[in-house]
């Protein structure tokens, strides 16, 4: 039986739950499947994966794999795939797999299909449905060759249940950590540790634009109001360009699309590119000193005035209220 290998993603010694969804596709493909984890000090994690109905949990455990460096990870994944004579190598669509799997596909000289939404049969052979044109169309594609690399969209597949009995064996993959590629060096990890909710999921979003002037004012006023309301922070392209807010705060046509219950736009004139990202918000409150600002035509409530005076008062009032 053709064997499938599912690459499971770890983040700081924890399994990333969405990466388990690929198991559902592995089951649909039929035949045996093994799970693969890479990292350092993985005994506990390996033990947590034995009940997913796999034929084995393959563990590549080495201090050299402590950080997900694409060149060495790809080399190890390709070696495992070769050694086990795998027919399908599977991952979940994510930054991690985008980084690693194309390299693996190249090392194995295998075709790759990304963002698989569903498995289909065309002329008796496996075919994969995937979005193209920014999701406006769906393509069903077949690939040539015996070996292929796939990534599955986590949202298109159910989370698998861990109820298989008996548990599968854990197999250790022997590797020479010193012999791995070392074209990449791990330097540091920077994370934005934030207690604020995710921008696209928050019920309240407070966004700021160009008049906030500098990162400190932006954080004090926009961040302050967001915290007072338990909301997320957003920004316009101009604010991001000016370095007041990080890139991933950008809301709009080329940033994130949000649809909170309450969107507060502060110092935002309302260019159509920004409005494209907020049009589905339930209530839009605009604060701007220019009464002719286009944002007021979109806003449910508008407040004309100087944000530097209004916002601190607003924060104060909410904190006291």
């Amino acid at each position, binding site marked *: 039986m053709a064997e499938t290998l599912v690459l499971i993603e770890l983040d700081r010694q924890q399994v990333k739950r969405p990466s388990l969804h690929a198991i559902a596709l592995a089951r649909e493909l039929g035949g045996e499947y093994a799970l693969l984890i890479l990292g350092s000090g993985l005994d506990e994690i390996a033990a947590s994966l034995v009940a997913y109905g796999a034929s084995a949990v393959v563990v590549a455990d080495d201090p050299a794999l402590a950080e997900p460096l694409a060149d060495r990870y790809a080399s190890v994944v390709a070696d495992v795939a070769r050694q086990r004579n795998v027919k399908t190598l599977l991952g979940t669509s994510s930054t991690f797999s985008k980084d690693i799997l194309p390299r693996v596909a190249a090392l194995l000289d295998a075709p790759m299909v990304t963002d698989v939404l569903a498995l289909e049969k065309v002329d008796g052979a496996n075919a994969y449905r995937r979005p*193209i*044109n*920014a*999701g*406006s*169309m769906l*393509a069903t594609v077949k690939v040539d060759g015996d070996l292929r690399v796939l990534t599955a969209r986590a949202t298109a597949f159910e989370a698998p249940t861990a109820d298989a009995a008996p548990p599968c064996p854990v197999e250790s993959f022997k590797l020479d950590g010193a012999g791995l590629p070392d074209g990449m060096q791990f330097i540091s990890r920077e994370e934005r540790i934030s207690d604020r909710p995710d921008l696209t999921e928050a019920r309240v979003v407070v966004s700021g634009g*160009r008049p906030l002037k500098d990162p400190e004012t932006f954080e004090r006023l926009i961040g302050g109001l967001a915290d007072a309301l338990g909301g997320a922070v957003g920004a316009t392209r*101009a604010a991001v*360009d000016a370095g007041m807010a990080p890139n991933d705060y950008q809301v709009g*046509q*080329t940033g994130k699309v949000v649809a909170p219950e309450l969107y507060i736009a502060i110092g935002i*004139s*309302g*260019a*159509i*590119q920004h*409005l*494209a990202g907020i*049009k589905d918000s339930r209530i839009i409150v605009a604060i701007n000193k220019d009464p002719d600002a*286009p*944002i*007021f*035509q*979109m806003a449910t409530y508008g407040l004309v005035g100087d944000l530097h005076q209004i916002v601190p008062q607003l924060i104060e009032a909410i904190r006291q209220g």
Partner: protein
Amino acid sequence: MMIALDVNSTTREVFGNIAPWMRVVFFVMIGASMGVLAWQVLAHFRQWRKGRPGGFEKDWRVWLQRLTVYALAQKRVHKKSLGALLHLLLFSGFLVLAIGTTLLGIAYDGPYYFHHGWYYLIYELTMDVFGVAFCLGCLLAMYRRAFQRPKSLGHNWRDWWLLSTLLGLGITGFAVEALRLHYTQVQPWMAHWSTVGWLIDTTMLRGIDVGTAKTMHLVTWWVHTIMVAGFFIAIPVSRFLHVITGPINIVARPERPMGQLVPLTMEEVEQTGRTGVHELVDFNQQQLLSLDACMECGRCEDACPAFASGKPLSPKAVVVDLRRLMSLGGGDVHATIRDETLWACTMCQACVQECPVLIGHVDLISDMRRDLIGEGKLSGPPAKALQQIGNQQNPYGRPNADRLAWAEGLDVPTVESNPNFEYLFWVGCAASFDPRAQKVARATAQLLKKAGVNFAVLGKEETCTGDPARRIGDEFLFQERAQANVETLGRRKVKKIVTPCPHCHNTLKNEYPQFGGQYEVQHHSALLAELIESGRLTNAADGSKDPITLHDPCYLARVNGEVDATRAVIGAAQDEQFREMPRCGKKTFCCGAGGGRMWFDEPPAERVSNLRAQEAVATGAQTLATACPFCLNMMSAGVADTAGGENVKVLDIAELLLSRQTSARTQTE
């Protein structure tokens, strides 16, 4: 002074110093080199033939007109630059010398001997004058390459080789003339007509005896001859090929409005299995020919906003890269030209306007974009805009039921409330849904009402014209919109259309006829200017005014030639405070939103809008007027990003005009 000419003796020898066997060698050598040239040109011709058949202009009157304007009068080459001057010298020199040499060939051994008398004297003088022009052109070209080194021109050793050959031809030509005058001991009065040769003779050849001169003449003559043969062989492998391919393309390029793209038919797609150009041979024959017409002058690159803003596109590089692909036998165009390069184009047509040999860069890019769309290679916001044009009939993804939200409280007549309208006011998606541009729609409607124009709007029956879809490369999405809109406009018996959007204007006017929609389409600037002219609106400003400048939208000014109406609406002629930008009128510079770029993300350093905003702010204007909702959007963002531009107001001409109506009314009340 009258000279009694002896018709038979007022002439010169042609091959006097050349032994008969040498003449044979000469004719064989020249014949062989011309044969190589013809064979090489034929090889190019075969490559063009590999393209899709046709694409050529068929009307001979257009051929003649174009040959006169673009080949002979060189309309596109002329401008105030050293490059243009030296080209004029080289072109006229080369043309006259080539004709003169051919005439000499005919006179030498043909049935008509006319190389004597007054004809001969004028011939000699003319050849000398244009020979000097030719040499001067070569020297200036060398100077330009050595010292000015314009980047867009491109430089390699072949250019020096070619220029040296040309200059060598000129110099040895004059040397041959001087030596001939010397050893044939021509009478001075006759020698004067061969001015340059005579000058060389009297200054440098004095004291040389006839025998030595004869030998020197023979040697120089051979050097000259070998250079001529070498030059013929060099033509097909150098920039000089354009003297042959340039005029052919000038004639062959099909005549159609600048703003019109060629429709794709379902039959073609079924036949070829392709939408657009994937392999080089998917271009048509005229397009392949046009690649060989390029002499790499770089005018297109100098005009290109994408190139100026640091994007990976140069129209010249597109042509040169495709030509290289053709010389290698063809293949996948995307292996040569990256997707990002194709997406970088704003379709402003500045390159097309500049090209002296009428290459259609935008058509080349559009054809390749169509293939990218067919292959599903577009993602992100622009793909979403296309999806929304498909689903909601507007690129912003707003419900079409909200089409009249802009008109709230204005009591704007619709095709239902006023079925006997004269003008259909086509609002366009931007002015319907973009809150900033909605003010332009409001201002235009108010002006039309004030002037008593009998108009109506389509309301929720209006949909996107499909312009962004067509420019991005989704031809069938465009056609879907075009057919639906033509049906609506027909059903509502529309004859005249006025619109504040230059892109809607261009598509309705130039592209809907391809789908059976014929209307009299006016941009709002044109109608508003008429209303001012007839006294139904006033553009008189009230007293003190700030400096003002105008940004010409590409699709209004360059593509559709309208530059007067916009200026008339804002009263530019009577306004001492009106300031033109360096790039204005038909030579305007793009705002960056065209070609679907409105929906692409750009890092700040690569924004065309910022370049243009800097140009506008540098005029010192406090008001930046424009006449396009996309320009309005881009320039608003641009001036806000520009130092000194924070307080510059960006307004549509209709908004400016409306403000003058109210102030005028306040004055009279």
